């Protein structure tokens, strides 16, 4: 089966979204049925966290699905957005303050993430392509991306310090739904995350560039023979990666009011877990996986205490990889290539 068809439409396409929704709803139902209003609040915050994980997981799944590249710079792109936005607002780089400052700061942050992602493309993928003819069959891009992770984290750390920075959450407004207080920013974040992922899905399925990406995922050489300009399409993957990670970083920043040079590490590893749970290469899988990991995290803190999160999430991942390596919705052919 077409590897990227997996990204958009698989043989089980109609049931994929259904299973995702059913799994999440069942989990929420179980939690609410066994707990009180405290649990409801945990479920809501779990879904918000899940929306952030989901967006980052989609970025991971896209680069692996199309380029067979486990891109470890994604956590640092996430962090770049948060730190750059925070620095531009509170370090006086902008001449104005307030809501507009935050909007401009976040825009600058996401732009920096996209630019950084293109830099990674330039020095990992394009160079390797020139030198070795094919960049997708080596562990080299993976190692190179670890190098970039160190570069970006320390470039931010040196001028801004390694401490965690807390600040008042911008865009503070609450609404009440059925006795439950929900932040407007939280709702907007979930909606934005869903919109970004839906847009990506549309791009892959309907547009010319999406078709080119799916062809490269199938086989870069064949794609090239069929007239796809691989060297011009690959940067698109990195732009999308930067956008997805950047948007997730922006959502995290405005909702939690807490940034640090290492903020991406935890979110990045959780997103990898989410991607594996859902199945590598599947966007629906990343969505379901992200929500499941977000819920599992908040509920496991609620029931077993804060130290249990890593155990719960990674135990789940290890079991899934061993029993059902393609994950909940994955495509068996993706990611099997030699590392």
């Amino acid at each position, binding site marked *: 089966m077409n590897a990227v068809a997996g990204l958009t439409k698989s043989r089980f396409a109609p049931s994929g979204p259904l299973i995702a929704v059913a799994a999440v709803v069942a989990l929420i139902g179980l939690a609410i049925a066994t707990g009180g209003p405290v649990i409801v609040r945990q479920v809501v915050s779990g879904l918000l966290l899940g929306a952030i994980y989901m967006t980052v997981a989609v970025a991971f799944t896209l680069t692996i699905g199309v380029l067979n590249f*486990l891109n470890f710079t994604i956590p640092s792109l996430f962090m770049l957005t948060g730190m750059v936005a925070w620095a531009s607002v509170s370090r006086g780089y902008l001449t104005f303050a307030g809501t507009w400052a935050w909007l401009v700061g976040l825009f600058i942050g996401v732009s920096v993430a996209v630019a950084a992602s293109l830099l990674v493309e330039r020095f990992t993928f394009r160079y390797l392509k020139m030198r*070795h003819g094919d960049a997708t069959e080596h562990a080299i891009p993976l190692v190179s991306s670890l*190098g970039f992770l*160190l570069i970006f984290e*320390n470039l931010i750390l040196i001028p801004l310090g390694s401490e965690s920075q807390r600040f008042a959450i911008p865009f503070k407004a609450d609404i009440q739904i059925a006795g439950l207080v929900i932040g407007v920013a939280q709702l907007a974040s979930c909606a934005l995350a869903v919109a970004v992922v839906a847009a990506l899905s549309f791009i892959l399925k309907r547009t010319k560039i999406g078709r080119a990406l799916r062809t490269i995922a199938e086989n870069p050489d064949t794609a090239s023979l069929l007239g796809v300009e691989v060297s011009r399409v690959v940067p698109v993957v990195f732009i999308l990666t930067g956008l997805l990670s950047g948007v997730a970083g922006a959502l995290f920043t405005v909702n939690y009011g807490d940034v640090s040079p290492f903020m991406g590490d935890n979110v990045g*590893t959780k997103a990898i877990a989410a991607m594996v749970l859902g199945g590598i290469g599947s966007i629906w899988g990343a969505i379901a996986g992200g929500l499941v990991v977000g819920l599992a995290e908040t509920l496991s803190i609620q029931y077993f205490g804060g130290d249990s999160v890593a*155990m719960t999430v990674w135990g789940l991942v290890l079991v899934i990889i061993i029993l059902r390596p393609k994950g909940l919705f994955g495509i068996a052919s993706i990611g099997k290539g030699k*590392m």
Partner: protein
Amino acid sequence: MSGYLSGTLAILCINLIFAYGIFITAVAGQINLGGAGFQAIGAYATAWLASQSGAPMWVIIPAATLISALVGFLISLPVLRTRGVYMVLATFAFGEVVAGFLLRSEIFGGAIGMVVPQHAELWVLIASAVMTTLAAFYLMATRLGLAMRSLNDDEDAATVLGVNARAVQVAAFTIGGAFAGLSGALYALNFGFVEAQYFNALLSIYVLLFVLIGGAQTAWGPLAGSLFFTILPELFRVGGSWRYFVFGVLIVLMMMVRPEGIVTRDLVRRLSPFAWWRRAGVAHGR
């Protein structure tokens, strides 16, 4: 010897043994991103045995190594069923599960960690590092080492020629687990204290970089990688955070100009003392 120098030497020995643990699996074509998990098992086994049994070090170190090897053997059976990215992520998940388990477990001190009541002197570490290095060189010269290399080069071709791929990879994981566990045991005995937070994903990433930057083609690679990564930070210590930045730049540059690592098979062949003799032999028509 000054405390600073002996401290650096101790870290070098531990890193070197740890790197050989990851190297052995890399030779067989498997990227192990869960090294910290194996090191943690060795370290905690040592801490637990030392505080509970009071057995001498000569019993504890081999016991901790064996426990880690056994875990390597057992975890390799399910993990090696997976391939590519899945296999990398399975080892990564393993490392996270081990760290998460140790953080939660009461008998291993949870988040507080454990004090190790025995101490290993520097010469124990140096002797272990030398023996590990010799063992790795010997292993690379055996049929098993050759089989591992062939799996990395072309698994299908090696299988056709009669290499039992699965058995060789399981063996690689077991030996790798033993080395990583040994490094953990020595870490615990030298530093006298273990805590779960130390054995994190970043440690696994660093040790993998030692091996891949050093070069995974010959047993010289981890030696070069550990020397490079242990001594360079000491030289850059004045620079504070800049040294990690320089590190990152070096890694990216290295992958661009010499992705096989510092030491390659070809370099070893050219620098070998026998190379001159061989050339001379050719010149004399032998």
